[in-house]
């Protein structure tokens, strides 16, 4: 088995509003690019085969699995990670704040992906039902929370009461 040539590529991707440039192997996934090349370690790796959702980021505003994309594919596009969700340094978005208030996380590992999924949900649907919230985060696995308080947090962020104590 001969190794094919793998010429390095230069990519330019707007990440959290800032144009970032790096030289990468084509096989570098978007999540590895963000973490290793840009030092944005807020996006996490959980499975590397597109199931757990811990690597979720917004690509041109849509949530995608960053482990299922190569950085070279995203050249010239824009990406938002968890580090780009807060309105400003030292502040939290409404959703991030609601996550804290409703205790919607424990170990924090799935949290960036959850926030990305929920941000997208609220951008499309400002008053989601419980079923819609669960569907929106259905592709983000969590082993700590049992999802209850995450659902509560989204309801809180949208001015709806939490159903369960």
């Amino acid at each position: 088995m001969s190794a094919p040539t793998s010429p390095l590529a230069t990519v330019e991707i707007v990440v959290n509003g800032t144009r970032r440039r790096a030289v990468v192997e084509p096989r570098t996934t978007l999540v590895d690019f963000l973490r290793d090349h840009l030092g944005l370690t807020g996006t996490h790796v959980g499975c590397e085969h597109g199931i757990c959702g811990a690597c979720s980021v917004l690509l041109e505003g849509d949530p995608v699995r960053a482990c299922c994309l190569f950085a070279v594919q995203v050249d010239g596009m824009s990406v938002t990670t968890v580090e780009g969700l807060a309105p400003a340094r030292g502040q939290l978005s409404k959703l991030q704040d609601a996550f804290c208030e409703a205790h919607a996380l424990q170990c924090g590992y799935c949290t960036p992906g959850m926030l990305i999924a929920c941000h997208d949900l609220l951008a499309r649907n400002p008053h989601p039902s419980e079923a819609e919230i669960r569907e929106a985060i259905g592709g983000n696995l969590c082993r700590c929370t049992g999802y209850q308080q995450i659902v509560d947090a989204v309801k809180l962020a949208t001015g709806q009461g939490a159903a369960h104590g």
Partner: protein
Amino acid sequence: MKAAPFAFIRAESLDHVLEQLARHGGEAKPIAGGQSLVPMMAMRLARPALLVDINRLPELKTLEIGPRRVVMGATSRQRDIEENAALNRVVPLLREAVRWVGHVQTRNRGTVGGSLAHADPSAELPLAALVLDATLVLRSQAEGQRRVAATDFLIAPMVTATGEAECLAAIEWPVWEGPGVACAFEEVAIRHGDFAMASAACQLQLDAAGICRRAAIGLGGVAGTPLAFPDLAAALLGRRIEPRLAHDIAEEAAARAEPGSDPHADAEYRRHLAAVLLRRALLRAAAGVPAMAAA
């Protein structure tokens, strides 16, 4: 799980894709949504030497809705299929199928062509293509264009009729003209969004008296490819879709399945599921219930 090394080209046109595929043969692979391909590459089960990215080609994202058929570019995103009301009116089975596919994130990137080219025996879109007798349009540098019926396109698990130098460019979905068209897609998986342990799809056209005038039925996840049953569908014509008939047709179809076994579901169970789901699909379609079944 890092992919084996490969070279990468972003296609500038479809001709560019075809030229690369012709030059590199089986060593080059087009990449669209990547939701199936990239995990396989991460596990080193797929090792193309060259990836040709086709995501940004406008000629593969077209959607022409005509009176007799819909011509859909291969890199149409699954998400867009879900949300297109005009498409849903003329090929309602597509939305019924896509709603079972994966999750929001995967449908944002996953493409219709990608799912068909991947040809997982449990996948929803290949079943829909087979049931509707869709036509796959393959392009290559050498032959120009080749139109292949779904039944000839889906050959075996993960194996299609796509040649090494060919790229799936479009899918033609037949439109059933006239009133009284209803469809249903049923599936059982352990979790939402998983591949089905078994699935069933049907599209019917009933006249004003409720008599079936046109039918297409199929099963997924119970053989090496999805299965369609034109002869059993023909047996529905001129009849009312009643429980006894639906049951018998479904049983017969399931009897012809060749399901496999895995830790989640053994063959006998899958065969049984297939019969149950096809019966339910027929009855639901006949009753004209449009919504996806609740979990």
